[in-house]
């Protein structure tokens, strides 16, 4: 059984706001299935005694002091924005969401 279906890929594309054609979906579904299959083989090799990890180095509790440092100016912050108005980032209207 495939690890990922064409419907899964279509759903992920929708969540990621990526427009995909039927041909692309067919193609990517197969390709991602192969990738996931490869990852699954790695999982088989890892025994139950190997805990899952989200970080390559076993480090915990890295904290900083609660001290304020200078921020960017609003001009700097907005310098890369495609559009701006009133010192704010200007974005297109968002439809279908509250």
């Amino acid at each position, binding site marked *: 059984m495939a690890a990922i279906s064409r419907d899964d890929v279509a759903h992920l594309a929708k*969540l990621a706001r990526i427009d995909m054609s039927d041909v692309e979906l067919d193609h990517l579904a197969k390709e991602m299935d192969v990738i996931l299959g490869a990852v699954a083989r790695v999982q088989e090799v890892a025994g139950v005694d190997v805990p899952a990890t989200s970080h390559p*180095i076993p480090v915990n*509790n890295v*904290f900083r002091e*609660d001290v304020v440092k200078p921020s960017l100016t*609003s001009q700097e*912050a907005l310098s890369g924005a495609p559009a701006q108005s009133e010192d704010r980032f200007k974005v297109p209207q968002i439809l279908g969401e509250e």
Partner: protein
Amino acid sequence: MALSYDQAVEKYEPTLGLEVHVELNTKSKMFCSCATEFGASPNTQTCPVCLGMPGALPVVNGKAIESSILIGLALNCSVAPFSRFARKNYFYPDMPKNFQTSQYDEPICVNGYLDVEIDTDEGIKQFRVEIERVHMEEDTGKSLHVGGATGRIHGADYSLLDYNRAGIPLVEIVTKIVGGTGKYAPQVARAYVTELRDILRSLGVSDVKMEQGSMRCDVNLSLAPASSGTLGTRSETKNVNSLRSVERAVIGEVIRQSNRLDAGERIVQETRHFLEESGQTRPGRSKEQAEDYRYFPEPDLVPVVPDSAWIEQLRATLPEKPSTRRKRLQQAWSVPDKEMAAMVNAELLDVVEETISLGAEPTRARSWWLGEVSRLANEREVAATSLITSAQIAEVINLISNGELTDKLARQVVEGVIAGEGTPREVIDKRGLKVVSDDSALMVAIEAAITAQPDTAERVRGGNIPAAGALIGAVMKATGGQADAAKVRELLLKHLGQG
């Protein structure tokens, strides 16, 4: 016929769930060193980290972790020995990173409870609200929807984003489902949020200002037929921004859902928005397709692993619980339940305690705050504590206690202080509000009263003591109410041979 609230709770059993978001009052943000000040100019408190620039790396604010652990401990939770951050992925411009750093299946604190008391016709009732989890995350930016008529997203032409708030530490406190409250659901919800706010305030971890958004509440509510033992479909009401609104939102949803159910319609699982003016809710985004946030562990942050020494060190700093403090104060001041409840509801405990600590007589301190000051505050629709300080009230009360002011004069002093005429002393001087207790000054007024009412004076001389009232009244009138009535009586009776 539409069901009223009372009819609704006879037919249906409400089940609550409460999610409270609280902004911590750290100086810097959760994952970067930007300031967190409220009301700064747009986009002046941002940096590559909180703007989600590629390659910028977050580092956790240690103070925020401590505050989160303190909150968990104060809510009787277990602190997780291992806890991680996760990315909550969504496309929405309030987070420039396209995800919010949050916690998912490994929150920092779990399984606590908070006992709350409500005042009912059947006496004080206690309910235990169980806490599912306390987790850390970051606040989002503020959007301004421009164009369209309503300021809502629908119909807006575009949105303007200010990311000053994005990345401010946020703690979310989620209850387990709260059942068995019956008709008291609205009061239990309010009492819980109130108690939680008081606890957070006593911990000093947040400003807990609901009106400024540093504490926000989502109210989940479902109904099931009474004694059916089942759970209905719930709605989630957002935008509930005051304690009173928490209560009103529950009432509003009980009425709305019960009427739908009665009409044979089903309840849709959805997010609704509370409308402050009407106390009703309107539908928001539908949740029928469960949200898919594709959470995964945040690879840029390392796990939080608090050791027990750290936890115990924090536990040792926990302040007295607000509920314990209330009981202690009630006993110390020997206040009846009703008066205590009135002070708690009016949020006057702190100022009353301060006023007493400044030497004011306890009964007077309570009655001035609950009575005159509250009355003036209600007239002006502001908080009593915004009108006058506890030091000023204490000064006025101490002047009454040592006989320099009568109650009547004291009211004028308080009025003057509130009107901005200065300190109580200054008001007394400016308005000339001194109790006339100087014997010779009073005697002049007494002689005048006797001359004006010779017959009355004669009756008093003849032993008709109650008749003295008319003469005392005349003296009080002549001195503009500034005389000490007891003193006038004493001098008058003595003068007429009855002392």
